[in-house]
């Protein structure tokens, strides 16, 4: 996929997303790849909230809001229904947040990968429950404050490695992406759409409201996350992990932390420890 091939058609528009919302951008780009022959399942979260204010109806494709815990289970049902009707050409897409994926939704996701029906599950990862007022999730990174991990009680657990979790299910295709690398993300969506089975893409979407940075800096923050090694652009295919983008210049993680407010309670020693941890990481997928 090349930039000039990207559709100009907007199948998601005029939402109530916060200024600078990268989750909305991820959804727009997804629909540019998949087109109108797709149906969406969206659980509780930012996207269902910002898409459901009368009179705006930002989705120009069918969408159902599903119980928080049940996104992937609903995908299995829809996909099986389409299979029965001989309509496997329709893209069945789940679009859930990090909490809806890694916490309350993980059982349904695990079950659905096991069921094996064809769907694309996209986790828009803004690293906390932003819609309900910035509470931590299983994908909040170590060191971040949220309203339920305030001040010195900052998040003290590492971010769950969802890519490895789904990979260990033997999923045919899974990937991580970041909104600051749109072509990389869209290529992955395109690839997933061509696979006859469950697929998973986790896209990092920096959140101005929850992370504490100006609304015009989401793309910059995403780049900093990748350049600092806090986030990696990976694929899991045919049982193997590989990196799809390696930043030319590495950036100290301290710069990424300084660009937002949620890490500001970390001492220089703690930042140094995180830097050492990043530097010591092996190849993608290795433990």
């Amino acid at each position, binding site marked *: 996929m090349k930039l000039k091939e990207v559709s100009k058609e907007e199948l998601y528009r005029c939402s109530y997303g916060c200024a600078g919302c990268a989750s909305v951008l991820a959804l727009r780009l997804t629909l540019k790849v998949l087109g109108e022959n797709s149906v969406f399942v969206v659980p509780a979260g930012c996207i269902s909230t910002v898409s459901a204010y009368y009179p705006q109806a930002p989705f120009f494709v069918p969408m159902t809001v599903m*119980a928080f815990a049940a996104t992937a289970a609903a995908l299995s049902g829809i996909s099986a229904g389409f299979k029965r009707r001989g309509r496997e050409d329709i893209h069945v897409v789940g679009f859930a947040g990090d909490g809806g994926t890694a916490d309350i939704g993980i059982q349904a996701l695990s079950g659905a990968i096991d069921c094996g029906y064809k769907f694309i599950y996209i986790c828009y990862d803004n690293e906390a429950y932003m819609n309900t007022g910035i509470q931590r999730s299983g994908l909040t990174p170590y060191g971040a404050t949220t309203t339920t991990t305030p001040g010195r009680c900052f998040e003290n657990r590492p971010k769950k490695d969802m890519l490895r979790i789904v990979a260990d299910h033997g999923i045919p295709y899974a990937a991580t992406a970041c909104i600051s690398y749109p072509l990389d993300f869209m290529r992955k969506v395109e690839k997933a759409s061509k696979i006859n089975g469950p697929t998973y893409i986790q896209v990092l979407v920096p959140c101005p409201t929850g992370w504490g940075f100006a609304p015009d800096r989401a793309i910059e923050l995403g780049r900093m996350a990748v350049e600092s090694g806090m986030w990696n652009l990976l694929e899991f295919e045919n049982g193997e992990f590989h990196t799809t983008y390696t930043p030319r210049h590495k950036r100290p993680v301290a710069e990424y932390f300084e660009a937002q407010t949620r890490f500001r309670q970390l001492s220089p020693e703690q930042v140094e420890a995180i830097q050492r941890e990043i530097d010591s990481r092996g190849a993608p997928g290795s433990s």
Partner: protein
Amino acid sequence: MTTMVLSGNEACVEGALRSGVRFFAGYPITPSSEIAEEMARRLPALGGKFIQMEDELASMAAVVGASLAGLKAMTATSGPGFSLMQENIGMAVMLEAPCVVVNVQRAGPSTGWATWPAQGDVMAARWGTHGDHPAIVLTPWSVKESFELTVRAVNLAERLRTPVILLSDAIIGRLREKVDLPPSVPVVDRPRPAMAPDHYRPYAGGPDGVPPMADFGTGYRWYATTTTHNERGYPVGVDAAAAEGLLKRLHSKIHDHQDEVVLTEGRWLEDSEVVVVAYGSVARSALAAVKQARSRGLKAGLLRLVTLWPFPSQLISQVAQRIRGLLVAEMNMGQMVEKVREASCGASEVWSVARFNGQYLMPEQILDKLEEVRRAWR
């Protein structure tokens, strides 16, 4: 006495901490999240434990677990989360694990109209979990009462070894009012076994039907079980009398203490022709409406249900015999009105004024209905 300006949710935290709650497990959901956030901020300093769980099933399960471990435990949620907790609330009833569940109601069903206020969960609070089970449900009408009823909920849970539900709503949870907080509150601890471990029968009711509860890890080996069990905590097998005895005791331990559990507030009940029955935030409107009605010469009174369940049938029945009409005001499609009709048993007329569009039931609407009742009686 300390005077503070608090929201209903904050007052709830204040009441919980002062009555000894030292464990909170929860999951974000508007309009209850402030309770979790405040607990996250304050519990560590008190040596307590806050855990954010992966969902509401887990929250409720963790609360039951902490209760078995000997801590006073609480969670808070709203509609969809309350639905997810229901199975484990039933477990807490059967295990007789003291705990408090706060439901800050929002407009449902399902995701509903997030997060506009409603009182649609009054029956879910009573019958949300399956099977014949008792329920204690308290509903505050002010910030101050959010504080007081949380204290009461914690104490009742401990005293009677049962889950207690505090049914707040989006209006009360987020309302800010001045509250005078007392220097101390009554604190009740669960009954604990006086006998040696060898003689401990975990589900033997004792004189008031409440079995003493041994904290896990204190040398008492017992099965906390959700299966229908005998006094020793073992499955009843084919013993029908034991099965019946368990259910009867689970109910009677609450119904025999109605005087401690059932709270109501009456105004002008003695000289009224029509009495407005209301609860929670709507009772504020109802009081204003009743006052205006009286100034217009209509003999109106107010019966405020502080405890929704067990339902004060006897009181309603007594009031119904003295007056001409009961008007039930509530923010749902008319749920408690049926219960009031049943209790009045034809002794008085029963009218309903219900609003279920996410908007507050205003005094004018209740007043209009009172006028309608008056016109009907002319």
